[in-house]
């Protein structure tokens, strides 16, 4: 087994520096397991906050009893003095109830928010170490939406839905237990009405649910529609189609509104059923108690007759009996959104092809001596790319089958290959941006593996095909926050990339996302400066640096590239014959005989 094979074997353990799973509280773990089983069971905020909130709801029973007794006393002509203590009791219990509810919901929120942070952290660390070569890696836009906006839905789901679910069980049971000893008829009315609610809601709602979720998702598409048209505004304006497009936008929105309303008409019916039964439940209890008092419905109170206080007590409990159910239905969409968010997070957290993860920070600074690269028996294929590529035009195939290559220190090599021939892949493998199936890569005599990756990378300068410009000043874009680069280094690097003018005129300018305000050539020069600033680099890797450039700019970039790699090893992946002709050697991948060496 080669050294790199050992590195791969160690990979899973190294992928996550801290296993967030280990930090989660047991309830969440169980919830996560149940979710994975596909049952859609929710994650929980823990028992204590649930108990607090359920307890708060139960206090109302005590308040109702005090109020009922007070009303009974008033009817009996007991006078104002008699209700003072019950009134104080009602108030004190009310404050206690408010406090318990508040504490419970705060605790539930904090737990839920913490869970969200852990989920995000987990997703981010999984994505950070997923190879950029992995074809099934989700797009940056999708990941950003999932991790930023969509993930927010986890909090209301965990913090609100689960406590309410418990309350919808505990509170009606407790109230039923309080009402039953007084009047079995009133208890029966509640008992019949409550289970009927879910049944009717289900009957009305199950057909509408799927359609409504699809429809509501389409509401989001209206934004996509608007953005789609705004992105192509130049074309629309050039075709004088602004008015037509605006009307089209309007028509689409109206059509969508009509369709959405057709679904909502049914969807709202299910909550109307809930309202109806809870309102009728209250009404029927009131009417029964009234007729019972008048002696027209003598039965129902276990042979006796209810007192006014008992009747009022029952009536006050009737709305509270249905309340948790009503609240639950109000947050039902929290659940749908929360489950969808958890699923989306799980999807972006899924493991893919890894990069060689650097374990720790380099202790010794590299000396900047030109480093040779020796590749021995390299095997690589894109794992699972067959499933990820939708059009099937890229079946899974071996990119490298036993590739060996020897690059001497200080040598300047162009790697050429037909499109898709693996020239960028080779560069990525040397940089450790993907893990090969087999074989070793030695840089400056040292084998690339997790323990050496950080140190080896500190000795490499990287020039990517489409350099990403980070929001920040030009200077920050050169250092990327590396602490060992002082102002002089940055200055020199910007100078080497002929960016001194940019650095001087727009020194404090914050470059926009994706390099807004920079031309393609300027962005590439910034990337050159980024590479030039790596003082200890013994190896410069450049991936198609002159693609998409006009000839003059390409020539300029080539000059700079040769300048900054003076005294270093340079490997360039390119299909630009002009650039390749300026190297010491051209390596044609997939064609061993074409390994041409210049005299």
């Amino acid at each position, binding site marked *: 087994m080669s050294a790199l094979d050992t590195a791969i074997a160690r990979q899973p353990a190294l992928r996550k520096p801290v296993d967030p799973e280990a930090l989660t509280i047991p309830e969440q773990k169980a919830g996560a397991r149940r979710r994975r089983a596909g049952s859609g069971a929710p994650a929980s905020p823990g028992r204590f906050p649930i108990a607090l909130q359920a307890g708060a709801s139960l206090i109302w029973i005590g308040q109702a009893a005090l109020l009922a007794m007070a009303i009974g006393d008033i009817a009996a002509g007991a006078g104002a003095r008699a209700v003072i203590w019950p009134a104080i009791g009602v108030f004190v219990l009310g404050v206690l109830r408010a406090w318990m509810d508040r504490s419970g919901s705060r605790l539930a929120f904090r737990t839920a928010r913490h869970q969200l942070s852990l989920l995000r952290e987990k997703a981010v660390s999984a994505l950070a170490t997923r190879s950029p070569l992995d074809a099934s890696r989700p797009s940056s836009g999708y990941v950003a939406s999932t991790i930023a906006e969509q993930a927010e839905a986890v909090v209301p789901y965990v913090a609100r839905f689960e406590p309410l679910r418990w309350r919808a069980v505990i509170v009606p049971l407790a109230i039923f237990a309080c009402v039953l000893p007084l009047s079995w008829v009133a208890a029966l009315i509640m008992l019949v009405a409550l289970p009927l609610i879910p049944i009717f809601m289900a009957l009305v709602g199950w057909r509408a649910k799927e359609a409504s979720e699809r429809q509501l998702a389409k509401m989001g598409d209206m934004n996509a529609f608007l953005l789609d048209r705004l992105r192509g505004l130049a074309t629309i304006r050039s075709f004088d189609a602004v008015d037509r497009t605006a009307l089209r936008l309007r028509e689409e929105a109206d059509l*969508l509104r009509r369709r959405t309303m057709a679904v909502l008409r049914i969807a709202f019916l299910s909550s109307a059923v809930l309202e109806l039964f809870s309102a009728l439940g209250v009404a029927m209890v009131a009417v029964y108690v009234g007729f019972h008092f008048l002696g027209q419905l003598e039965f129902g109170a276990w042979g006796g007759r209810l007192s006014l206080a008992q009747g009022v007590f029952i009536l006050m409990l009737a709305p509270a009996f249905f309340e948790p159910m009503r609240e639950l239905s109000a947050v039902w969409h929290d659940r749908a959104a929360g489950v969808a968010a958890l699923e989306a997070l799980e999807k972006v957290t899924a493991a893919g092809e890894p990069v060689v993860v650097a374990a720790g920070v380099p202790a010794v600074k590299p000396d900047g001596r030109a480093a040779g690269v020796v590749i021995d028996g390299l095997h690589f294929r894109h794992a699972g790319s067959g499933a990820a590529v939708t059009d099937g035009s890229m079946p899974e195939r071996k990119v490298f089958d036993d590739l060996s290559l020897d690059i001497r220190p200080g040598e300047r090599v162009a790697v050429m290959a037909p499109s898709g021939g693996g020239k960028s892949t080779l560069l990525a493998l040397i940089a450790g941006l993907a893990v090969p199936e087999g074989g070793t890569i030695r840089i400056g005599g040292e084998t690339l593996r997790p323990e050496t990756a950080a140190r080896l990378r500190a000795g490499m300068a990287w020039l990517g095909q489409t350099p990403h410009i980070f*929001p920040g000043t030009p200077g920050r874009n050169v250092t990327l926050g590396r602490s060992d680069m002082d102002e002089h280094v940055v200055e020199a690097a910007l100078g080497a990339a002929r960016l001194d003018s940019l650095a001087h005129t727009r020194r404090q300018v914050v470059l926009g996302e994706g390099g807004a305000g920079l031309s*393609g050539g300027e962005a590439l020069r910034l990337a050159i400066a980024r590479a030039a600033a790596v003082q200890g680099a013994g190896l410069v890797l450049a991936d198609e640096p002159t693609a998409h450039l006009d000839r003059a700019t390409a020539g300029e970039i080539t000059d700079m590239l040769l300048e900054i790699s003076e005294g270093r090893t340079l490997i360039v992946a390119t299909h630009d014959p002009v650039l390749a002709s300026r190297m010491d050697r051209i390596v044609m991948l997939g064609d061993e005989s074409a390994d041409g060496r210049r005299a």
Partner: protein
Amino acid sequence: MNSLRHLQAVMALFWSQNRLMLAAGTLLALCTALAGIALLGLSGWFITATAIAGASVATALVFDVFAPAAGIRFLALARTFSRYGERLVTHDATLEVLARLRERVFRTFATDEEARSLAARPARLLFRLTVDIDALDSLYLRVAVPLVAALGSALVTSAALGLIAPALGIGIGLALILSGLAIPAVAAARAQKPARRRAHALEVLRSRTIDLMRGQADLVMANRLSAQTAALSAADSRLADADDALNHIEASTGFSFAVAGAGLLAATLIAAAVLAESGTIGAPAAALAVFVALACLEPFAALRRGALELGRVLLSARRLGSKLTDVVDEAASPDLPSCPANAVEIAGVTVSYRHGDRPVVEDQSLAVARGEHVALIGASGAGKSTILSLIAGELPPHAGTVRTLPAALLTQRTELFCDTLRGNLALARSNAGDGEMMEALHAAGLGAFVAGLPEGLDTMLGEGGAGLSAGQARRLALARLLLRDTPVWLLDEPTEGLDGSTARDVIERIGACAAGRALVIVTHIRREAELADRILLIEHGRVQADCARGSREYLRLLERLRPD
């Protein structure tokens, strides 16, 4: 105060559309609230009255039991139906307003000035736009409707109680309006800052995630990956802080409402007992008052969420408010001359992007004859695209004049839309028939492909034309251009990003279709420049060389270009 002014603009937009629905939705919400309060109040009165009447057989027999019993049933049904109606009407009205809002925003951004600023805008701001539009639905659903329902129900309730006992009515009314408005008002004021912080933190989290994904290779190579994940964690913890602050306010608001409710209940109980003792009201009315006190704060509690979201709504209103003023239809190119002699005439034009910057194009004159094909070449940043934007009318000159015949632009990035193929093509000519469309597609080399599609011209494309290969997308854009039968075509790097054979085929087709039209091609690829009768070399915003086909310089300029 400024944000209030913007809020007015948003509210004016809401109100100017669909007044009837908006008012009906609010009214129904009020009915729902009142029916709920009345249901409990009447029930309390009813059972107390029946209990007193039932004490003796004589009163029990004469007690009119049916009217209140029917009233209770009626209120139960009324609450249900008005709630159902309220939800339907308010949602319909909101969807309607949001639809108009999107249309309005689109029209605003399509005006000259906004379109230019949009072109320079990063994607993040475009994304922010949609978030802002979405946030505005809270204004009606969670702020306006509950506010009117709560205030209205408080007034009606206190008036009704006032009929029984004036002091009771006034007392409950004042308590309701004071606490019911003060609590959400305090919450809204306190939530403004965290709501803004939250919106900002979410954007930072988003952009750092994008940085992680797009800049991953650079971060890995700089050993800065863990620093970036730490930065993401930091953004999340700032977001968590803002979330926590908002939740704290929400919980405090709920707590205040609950305490106010308990206080109101206890006070009403004592007041009712006092009034009953003095004989002002009977025991049934006392029970009614207690039951009403139980229910009357509920409509105000619905304001809780609106109060918290108000900060976000104000932020959106501030960002969007200025975009909602009525769009003045720009006069159809006022400076369009009566048919210039040439296809394109630029005279003494100066352009600079920002005030005070060195001009990108300075005192430049340029003419393209009718039917002439011209290529603009030069290093990136030399001003080629600026000249093209000038001709296309995307950019106004700061000095000098630009006169052109009607022109159509083929943008550098293929701009297709999420629509059917027909819809995409109809953008160029709305009255084009299927025959003309297919003809254009054949000319662009896409005819056989489209004819072979099961749904033909009705095939849907994804966002930005997703579903087509780069070559197919370019051909479709070309077919669209062909339908646009203008005497001038402006082509910005028409075959960039296409493989060699596709590119050559597309260029050949452009050449075939462009006969008789003036072409202005911005390019740095030789095969594209070869279309031109004349090549202009642009350097530092000026034409440095102007060489006609056949001259030695023409060939020398071609040599400077990328060969593939």
